[in-house]
């Protein structure tokens, strides 16, 4: 498979680009931020996502979806990133759907129709500390009757406050740090014993701290196999990380574009500042980094779609490389904008804030760099 979008993928990309730019450009993010919306995204827009078919990209055709792959999901995510569009797409339609794809038919029948209709939102209850450490999950799920009782705390559950269902990773055996013993559960977000405390993040998205106090679920809530949740979790994480890398790439590309435009129009000392070699070389270096990141992200998505045994390695490469390139893009963006880059009026700062949040989502560049060393055995 050549490493560029085929005709169908390009068409999907073009329609996603037109849609985000038309329906949810940066001004849309500002509007939802300024009215202090408690969800941090528009439910009407989420329904429009569904009408465009986006929410069904990773859902099989026999279940009403489009039956497409991670490359296609990535083309939508890149445009979400470029326009800073707030939506539950990454957590629900990408990572959440991918976890449910690994589960039983009953769960899919329960949740896919709502996702396809743009009515259901999923939250991912994975992290327990400030840094992403899925191998250190300690939250307990103890057997009780026909099901399980959940006790513990999760944080950084993006859009967790407005979620209908939470995918919860908990321990059914062993202790934090063990390879086995995890189980994933689909938990009704309004179940007795679930309390959610949402906070607005730096990028104006909402994320919840979630407390589970003796929350009982029956055996049907298990996604995949008991004690073998690692299999489902990996699938969820791979999809989420590749998706986050694609969205990050869009943030970096959007930030670079507005900065190039800015330095082409801003004059100092009687010259356009874009004609200064000091800025030209830094911008050309950034271009090079973004191109390499783009290739890495597409390669990771293709490998996931092919089921390659090296996909996980490339996903970490993509998350780290896209993270570093985009961090450079937003930092250079603010600096090259000068004083106005520090004002709320200009968009460049919004790109910087979104990048920071995406860096932490499912592992930052350092986390994935360490994983790459481990996968290489050193």
């Amino acid at each position, binding site marked *: 498979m050549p490493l560029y979008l085929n005709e169908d993928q390009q068409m999907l990309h073009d329609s996603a680009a037109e849609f985000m730019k038309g329906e949810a450009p940066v001004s849309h993010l500002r509007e939802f931020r300024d009215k202090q919306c408690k969800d941090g995204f528009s439910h009407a827009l989420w329904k429009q996502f569904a009408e465009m078919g986006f929410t069904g990209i990773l859902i099989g055709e026999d279940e009403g979806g489009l039956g497409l792959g991670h490359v296609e999901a990535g083309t939508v995510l890149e445009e979400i990133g470029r326009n800073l569009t707030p939506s539950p797409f990454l957590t629900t339609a990408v990572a959440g759907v991918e976890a449910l794809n690994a589960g039983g038919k009953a769960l899919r029948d329960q949740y896919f129709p709502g996702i396809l209709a743009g009515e259901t939102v999923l939250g991912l209850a994975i992290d327990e500390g400030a840094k992403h450490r899925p191998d250190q999950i300690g939250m307990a799920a103890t057997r009780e009757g026909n099901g399980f009782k959940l006790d513990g705390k999760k944080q950084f559950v993006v859009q967790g406050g407005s979620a209908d269902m939470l995918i919860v990773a908990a321990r059914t055996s062993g202790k934090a740090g063990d390879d086995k013993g995890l189980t994933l559960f689909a938990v009704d977000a309004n179940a007795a014993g679930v309390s959610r405390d949402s906070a607005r993040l730096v990028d104006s998205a909402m994320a919840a701290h979630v407390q589970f106090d003796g929350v009982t679920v029956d055996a049907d809530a298990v996604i995949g196999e008991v004690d073998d949740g690692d299999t489902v979790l990996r699938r969820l994480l791979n999809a989420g990380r590749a998706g986050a890398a694609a969205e990050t790439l869009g943030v970096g590309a959007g930030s670079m574009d507005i900065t190039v435009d800015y330095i082409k129009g801003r004059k100092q000392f009687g010259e356009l500042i874009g004609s200064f070699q000091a800025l*030209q070389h830094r911008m050309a270096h950034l271009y090079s980094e973004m191109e390499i990141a783009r290739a890495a992200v597409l390669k990771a998505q293709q490998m996931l779609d092919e089921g390659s045994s090296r996909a996980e390695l490339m996903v970490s490469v993509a998350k780290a490389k896209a993270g570093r390139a985009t961090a450079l893009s937003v930092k250079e963006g603010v600096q090259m904008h000068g004083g106005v880059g520090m004002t709320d009026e200009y968009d460049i700062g919004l790109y910087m804030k979104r990048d920071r949040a995406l860096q932490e989502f499912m592992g930052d560049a350092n986390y994935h760099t360490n994983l790459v060393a481990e996968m290489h055995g050193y």
Partner: protein
Amino acid sequence: MSDLEKFRAETAAWLEANCPPEMREPMTGEDDAVWGGRNATFKPGQKEWLDVMAAKGWTVPDWPKEYGGGGLSRAETKILGQEMARLKCRSPLSSFGIWMLGPALLHFGTEAQKKHFLPPIARGEIRWCQGYSEPGSGSDLASLQTSAVDKGDHFLINGQKIWTSYADKADWIFCLTRTDKNEKHKGISFMLFDMASEGVTTKPIVLISGQSAFCETFFDDVKVPKEYGEGVSSVVYEVNKGWDVAKYLLGHERSMISGGGSEGATSLGAKFADQVGRDEMGRLDDPMLRAQMAEMDIEVLAFRAMAERFGDTFKAGLCHPAQPNMMKYAGTEINKRRHELIMAAGGSEVLEWESDASNGGMTARSWLRTKANSIEGGTSEVMLNVISKQILRLPGA
């Protein structure tokens, strides 16, 4: 079996039968490469391997058969490369004639020039060098001053070239000369002549690596005939249009040098962890070096994806014409950083410059050699200028 599968099977069998065992051992030094030429010397197996490959046209598998090539399609050429790699067959011939002059002649040469010059290149009979840079004309190559004056049946050449790789060992030179002093880019010609001509002298330049392929080359009233037989002009393309040829060739050269970034796909950490040492967790026990090596793994794997994407988009006509400049920039910068880490991993042992254990200081000499990557074939700064102007369209072109 498809035609390509059949071709693969036949190629593998032929290579197995014809590649001498010595040519399937890894190279241990630079003198294991075969450069051919009038004064070539050969180690065991080298000449046989060159001759059988040249007879099949497989020193230049994708050139047309009438010019000494193999006439293979792109897919067949790729299969040949894969099968040679699988059986560990060495390249039969290293040659600037193949890498650089050949593509330029195939693109710009007349039929008579192609017939005259290409087959000896394919057979490794003539060793070529490239006369581009001059002491005052590095990055600003088009400011070159070596003059070629029209004297009726010949040109008279005077001037000096520098960084002429292997000029002291080359038989012929492809050389940029100034044929019009009043024009900068439109006064340059691309000429071919014999290094044995009267008035040509060369002097090797010793580099910081203690070795060098580079020379200074002097031309003192060198007479270059206008023709080497009917229709075989010594000037490629047209007089005063040599800059077009040079630009085309530089594109080739830059793509070639950029390959350094994807070289050594093996993880440095995996390669050196045991040598450096491991902690009780099995991790490389210098945490900062481990982190830097893991970052390098990411750079290399990401750049390999970039190289694959560049190749795919290039073939499909989808990439920007200035994209080779970005590949050259990124590839050479990564390669330099990689060699810094290799030196750090080796510690004091790779500081040895002349010992047998260090294979004559090979690691250190290679490290120093890579510093030229971001200078030769256009500096990183020139690449960044091209990206700024031609891709990002920043002002002040």
